[in-house]
């Protein structure tokens, strides 16, 4: 069992948002919270690229370093989880996160932050595994059932991959070997060929 990770293949993502829908449905994510989102760069241009991004479960997570109540932690699989009981909604994890993964409900005065919510790699949280408390606070715990996160399972083009980082890099390496770098036209194949000749 190695480090768990996500990998979104920019050449395959078609912006169908199945991953977003799967996550919201499976984890009963409240309105306004976006654990996973799909971002489209250069929309409409020949080199349009879409990427699905949620928590990256960093090995050296800045959110863990900055949390003033120390409620964010990393599991043995490298999944970054947090304890909502201790979260004070200060927002510092959002300031630190390069990917904007932490999300907050508008609960406090002036609509300021309630307790932080984010992608859990479908691993639940510090409550008892598969209990009602765990589900209502953190969502489904699929990993405890031996399954992978639903976003990757539902991806229509297998752009989004989730699992052991070594396995993921191997899959991506095979894809690059098969299709070539810049394959699929999404990298502006004609232009990059011009540059090489």
């Amino acid at each position: 069992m190695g480090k768990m990770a996500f990998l979104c293949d920019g050449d395959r993502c078609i912006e169908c948002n199945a991953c977003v829908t799967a996550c919201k449905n499976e984890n009963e994510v409240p309105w306004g919270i976006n654990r996973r989102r799909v971002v489209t760069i250069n929309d409409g241009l020949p080199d349009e690229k879409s990427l699905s991004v949620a928590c990256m479960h960093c090995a050296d997570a800045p959110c863990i370093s900055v949390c003033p109540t120390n409620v964010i932690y990393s599991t043995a699989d490298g999944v970054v989880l947090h304890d909502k009981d201790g979260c004070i909604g200060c927002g510092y994890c959002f300031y630190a996160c390069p990917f904007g993964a932490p999300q907050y409900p508008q609960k406090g005065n002036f609509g300021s932050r309630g307790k932080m919510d984010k992608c859990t790699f479908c691993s639940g949280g510090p409550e008892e595994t598969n209990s009602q408390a765990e589900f209502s606070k953190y969502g489904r715990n699929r990993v405890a059932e031996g399954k992978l996160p639903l976003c990757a399972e539902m991806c229509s083009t297998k752009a989004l991959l989730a699992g052991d980082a070594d396995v993921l890099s191997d899959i991506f390496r095979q894809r690059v070997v098969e299709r070539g770098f810049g394959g699929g036209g999404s990298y502006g194949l004609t232009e990059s060929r011009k540059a090489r000749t």
Partner: protein
Amino acid sequence: MIRVLMAAVFALLAVAAPAQADVRPPADAAVAVTSGQDIQPSLPSNLRSNPAAQLWQGIGDGTVGRVTIPDPQAGRLIQTGGMDWLEFRSEVIGFWGMVAVLGMLTGLTAFFMIRGRIKIDSGRSGRLIQRFKRIEVVGHWMTAVSFLALALTGLVMLYGRDLLLPLIGPAAFAGLARAGKYAHNFGGFVFMAGLAMIFVMWVRHNVWDRYDLNWILKGGGLLSKDHPPAEKFNFGQKTVFWMVILIGLALSLTGLNLLMPFWFTPDIETMQVVQLVHAGLGVGLFALMLAHIYIGSVGMESAFDAMSTGYVDINWAREHHSVWVDRHVSEQGEPPLAPPPGKGAGASAQPAE
């Protein structure tokens, strides 16, 4: 003349319009990216014409793409400022804040051991004059108490994880931190109200007057046991006033910004800077206020009376604010002998007015 101007404007538009009609980037130009910053790709020449390399570097530099989420900020894939912010907060603000607070405490202790409590040289006369009206006392304590609550809860947020959490455990600390955050958020409004009151009441007493230069040159008599003349507030107090007003104003504005995230600022970089300014000024002002608290309580005999009862012994006033006393006495006469302090604040409080 107008015709010439109109012709010039039309000519400019005619030139600009075709350029705008073609929105696709030229074959080997930099890929257009939209973000909060100017992108200057620093790629080697053999990659500069590779749109893929430019696209990925742009993403790393903060490209904002399109999302179906109503918040357009969600289109930002990567922000790298967070790492710098994190480091600055813990290495610079955390470290130097501790230096400032502990250094101030050390300095005050040393000053007390060397100089001792500043006594009234001519002893108490038993005659009291009113230094602060009730409204001034209320305004001061509103600001002071809320500031202490803000400072202590702020220190819990800055240092609590490292210093307090190991002592009281995660469950207790979580409760304390949560209560502290609410106290901090609501207390800020009390502080702002108090700050406004103080400014309105005392700003005209805190402008430079002709006794300030001499007071500065005599060092305020802090170490020399001299008694340079001063108005209602001496230069030291004026310094405290302006520090509290200006730093307090900065803290209020940054604090409001933090309380209502992204209401006034569009991007995360600005919010990070605002948070650093707030934390830095907060711990800095706390260190400065330790000196003010010292001199107003332990450091000087009869100083605390001024802000608790509002009345001071006339001998103390003559030694520290002679110009103010002389004007007060010439307007309202010499105060009568009042019962000595220790018979209760109420009993000693009523000179003839």
